[in-house]
């Protein structure tokens, strides 16, 4: 599925990588950038790459050190198992670069281009002078996309491109069959997996899971014997929302409910699924379902008639304070005006699940 990745970005603190199209992960932590393909079954290796960047950004954000650590990572395992990637970061007054596998990095250097490829082996350059800083174009397993990819200077800024924070990780997953574009589709296809990075654990057979799982959600093996070492990985679907008419929505990304949810910026930007509810008791943009780590939260958007939650068997509904959020528990019912929906998840594997979710929620609030 994940066969193409393309990203592009500039060098320097004031510029940020921008996505074009394709499947993959783009990470930016400070000035360290890594672009990685997303082949199936390589979640553990991807997690290790991302962890390396994340760890280095927090202690010593140097491009040369990034190259060292990433090449060590490749040396420590079978290079064929490591997904194709390219990475770069500042080294002195230039850039250090590492490119592995079917990947290519193109540095714009004062009107010219310097090209690095990861074939046949790993390309590591400790320092390339890029003065003045020019555009960087990176392609992983995407010759077709590379040809069509506009240079960075011509790329339109993405609508969600807020000013870059000092440290951020940014990832992109777009459909491989979608045309190259920088403006997202206004609506989102449910079949496209949204895989934000979350901390999770791998089962013995290499499937990425919520850390609270008793059994692996992909292969069923007990998680009791997993190492419980938590790494960043692609978030799978968290469950489903079942509407009172039987319609079902897979929780692969945020959802916006209302009479006219298309007007919501998140829907317009393609970050959320629009769920129109044709009922006068429902506000235009009534409420949002937000995926936060492994949690599913409901946020009331200041609706006229309010948003309420209740667990089955509870005698009364509890109103969600406008602007605040409530973490949904498996089986929880949500009332939006006269309409209702219910949250279910295959991850409700343990009778302690609710307790663990609550503990996690409390911990999250305490740290927020």
């Amino acid at each position: 599925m994940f066969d193409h990745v393309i990203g592009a970005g500039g060098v320097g603190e004031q510029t940020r990588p921008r996505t074009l199209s394709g499947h993959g992960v783009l990470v930016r932590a400070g000035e360290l950038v890594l672009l990685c393909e997303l082949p199936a079954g390589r979640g553990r290796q991807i997690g290790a790459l991302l962890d390396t960047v994340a760890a280095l950004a927090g202690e010593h954000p140097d491009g040369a050190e990034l190259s060292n650590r990433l090449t060590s990572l490749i040396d420590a395992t079978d290079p064929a198992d490591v997904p194709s990637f390219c990475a770069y970061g500042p080294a002195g007054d230039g850039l250090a670069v590492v490119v592995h596998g079917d990947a290519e990095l193109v540095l714009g250097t004062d009107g010219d281009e310097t090209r690095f490829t990861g074939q046949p082996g790993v390309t590591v350059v400790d320092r390339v002078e890029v003065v003045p800083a020019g555009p960087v174009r990176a392609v992983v397993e995407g010759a077709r996309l590379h040809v069509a990819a506009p240079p960075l200077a011509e790329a339109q800024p993405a609508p969600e491109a807020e000013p870059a924070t000092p440290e951020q990780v940014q990832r992109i997953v777009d459909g491989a069959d979608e045309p190259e574009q920088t403006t997202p589709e206004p609506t989102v296809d449910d079949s496209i997996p949204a895989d934000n990075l979350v901390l999770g654990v791998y089962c013995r057979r290499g499937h990425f899971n919520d850390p609270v799982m008793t059994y692996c959600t992909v292969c069923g093996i007990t998680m009791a014997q997993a190492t419980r070492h938590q790494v960043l990985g692609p978030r799978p679907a968290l469950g489903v929302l079942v509407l009172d008419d039987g319609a079902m929505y897979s929780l692969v990304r945020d959802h916006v409910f209302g009479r006219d949810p298309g007007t919501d910026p998140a829907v317009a930007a393609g970050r959320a699924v629009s769920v129109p509810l044709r009922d006068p008791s429902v506000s235009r943009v009534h409420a949002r379902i937000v995926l936060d780590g492994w949690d599913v939260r409901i946020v009331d958007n200041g609706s006229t008639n309010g948003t309420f939650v209740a667990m089955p068997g509870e005698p009364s509904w509890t109103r969600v304070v406008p602007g605040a959020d409530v973490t949904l528990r498996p089986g929880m019912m949500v009332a939006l005006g006269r309409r209702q929906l219910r949250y279910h998840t295959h991850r409700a594997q343990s009778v302690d699940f609710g307790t663990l979710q609550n503990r996690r929620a409390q911990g999250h609030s305490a740290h927020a």
Partner: protein
Amino acid sequence: MTEIFDLTTASRTRPVADEALPPIGAALPPALENADWWTDEMVARAGIPMLDVPIVSVGGGMGSFVTVDYLRVAGGVPVEDIRVLSNISHPWQTYEYLTRVSQLPRNRRIRSDSASRPDNLWGFPSYAIQEAFQDKTLKPLKQVFLEPVFDDFYTPLLGKVLDSMRKEADRIRYWDMLVQGEVRTVRRRVGGGYFTVLTPHPTKSPTQNNRPTGQAGPVDRPIAYRCRDVHIAVGYTGLRFLPDLQEFRERYNDYHHVVNGYEDHEHMYESLRRRPGTVLIRGGGIVTAAVMQRLICDRLNFGAQTRILQVFRTFFGDKHGAHPWSKRPGSHGFAYQGFNYPKSAWGGQLRARMLRREGEDRVRIYDEIGGTTTPLRQHWQHHLSRGRKDGWYHAYQGTIDNLRLDPEGKVLATLHNDDGDHDLNADYVVDCTGLDGDVAEHRVLGDLLKHGGARRNPLGRLDVEPTFELRGSANGPGRVYVTGAASYGGYFPGVDTFLGLQISAQEVIDHLAHRGLCRKMGPMRSTIEWLKWARGRQI
């Protein structure tokens, strides 16, 4: 589309997640990891604190509970001499989860005999008597009297079973013996006995006396329990997710169209109550029956218009069996049997035959009595018959594979049988194909095979003596006993049932008593202990 993940958030959430479920810890030092035998010095050198306990039970589920109950009641072993090492908080936690998600909530009846009581060594009073007494009705007693010819087998309510277990756990002070954590390995000790290494869950150890002397605060590093005997009852390695289901999930990132009967799939019933749909069920066992009963109840209670397609790999149209004198009833695809095993497996001729068989001969008997069965229960059979007539229930023989989503979001599956291949279309597919018992996949059991001298029996599980002592693992005065699913294939069938766990525990206690390590319970003490049980007196 671009999504942002902030590293600063990630660094905040990591310790929270760690708190929710602790890491099992780094690997053991190579000197320990690679050694079949450990000395006290090796463990001390690794910085792992040691605790001396005569007996530990690894698992903490139903198997541990039943065995510890026998140790305390029949064996008279004090609380201080037993530790239960478990990653779950109460013995019925896994059992309750599996029954709940497979459509057996607390108010439903499980597939177990009236006298198979995990909380009661004597099986008296049976669940039927208890229910008759508590609910002031003669109906359960009448059913037991008439079963199985004139009525269905009596089976107890799940809620009553679990409540009585909680009561017995309190009575035998189970919670004082429980240490929560992840058991990593059981290794033989030079000089006799074993080391059982556990990484405790922080803040979860219910008693201070589980901690090594002088250690304060939550325990979060490995502890080696230096013990004479080890009992292991870790249950199944996991849920059996068929390759098709796994492939579907990985391919589509979709966990709700194709589900396993042993995972939460409430969304399916919720949706089907509100709009018509089709469910394809794979399997013919007790979980299949429970799922179908739920679908039928939703049809009756909520007017759900659900079409059910059922695929049997082996389709039984009539009585079947290896011999004319041992036929199992069957019809419409199902094989009917009151309980998981024939009654003769518990103490009759089948048990006696099994004791004398080795290798392939034993496998042959397991083949004869094995297979997927379900109890013949009149009420849902009646509705299935109605479903066949009205066209909302269809049964097929064959196998299905190649699960995929069609453009309308429905699941397509290819059915293979004698009539060729053709596609079935459904809104949901439910796999009811059981649990996974591969011992090599389990950390502790696999480690015993690798380092502990254990070997496999003819059915691939752990090879145990009739006393449930693990063959090849004896060490001086120490023994390892394995009961439950991991010992399936031994001289006693039915190990993964309530009664099977009790019979296994009896064998273990008898062997311990024979070795002079616990008391043997005679008629007088048995009567006294029963009176204590009946009065709920804590021991």
